[in-house]
């Protein structure tokens, strides 16, 4: 019987990382709010996944399994922070009569979005990833580079060794498929 489960010998980290890292990154960034920490946690997640690849039963999808590992990494991260609590000293430089200034600074902080917005964005992000997964590998990569990373046409063409008209055909198909996929819930 052919065993279709991945083992350490047939695992291709190139594909693995390309397939899942953006998804994991978005999952992490809403939870830890720090790019560097997010990158570390994802790197650790892949390593942990690699080490325990033989225990992966294939009951869940590869990604669900990686998310389960990542969740534990995130919890560990917060545990570590908490254990450092009390050692850190937090200084707040506002006196009582400058409360107004404080409020103004608070509301002008672009990073504080309202919670509903964030949850909404988060769900939308998942919907987008689910639709991206339905595209062909190369098509998805090119589309992401163009649409999320805002890379220019020329550099993408160079990297994939394709002509601009090839690129636009790929983008056209991807946009059509993505629109159709997202239409039901998000249009």
């Amino acid at each position: 019987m052919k065993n279709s489960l991945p083992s350490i010998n047939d695992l291709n980290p190139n594909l693995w990382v390309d397939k899942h890292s953006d998804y994991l990154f978005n999952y992490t960034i809403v939870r830890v709010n720090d790019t560097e920490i997010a990158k570390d946690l994802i790197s650790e997640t892949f390593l942990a996944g690699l080490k325990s690849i033989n225990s992966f039963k294939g009951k869940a999808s590869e990604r669900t399994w990686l998310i389960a590992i990542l969740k534990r990494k995130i919890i560990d991260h917060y545990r570590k922070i908490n254990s450092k609590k009390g050692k850190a000293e937090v200084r707040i430089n506002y006196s009582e009569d400058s409360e107004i200034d404080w409020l103004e600074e608070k509301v002008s902080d672009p990073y504080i979005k309202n919670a509903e917005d964030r949850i909404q964005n988060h769900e939308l992000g998942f919907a987008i990833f689910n639709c991206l997964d339905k595209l062909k590998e190369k098509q998805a990569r090119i589309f992401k580079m163009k649409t999320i990373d805002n890379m220019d046409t020329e550099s993408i063409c160079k990297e994939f060794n394709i002509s601009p008209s090839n690129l636009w055909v790929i983008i056209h198909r991807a946009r059509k498929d993505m629109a159709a996929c997202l239409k039901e819930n998000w249009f």
Partner: protein
Amino acid sequence: MKCEKAGHLSDKDQYKEASFWEKIKLVSHILFCKFCREYVKNNKRLSEVFKESDLKTMTRSDKLKIKKRLYEEILK
């Protein structure tokens, strides 16, 4: 202009790569073409959805670092 071309111009427009004349051509086409009008509408909405989602990707060099670590681990 054929619909295929109109679709292409609409795509370019979503990435701000359509010239002034290309935009004029597109607008005059969709004025009379219901099919392309629908495509342009969906296409714009798709761009909005991506903007709203505020998705981030990891940079290529960050991905490369992770790949290297994984390869090292496999070769151990």
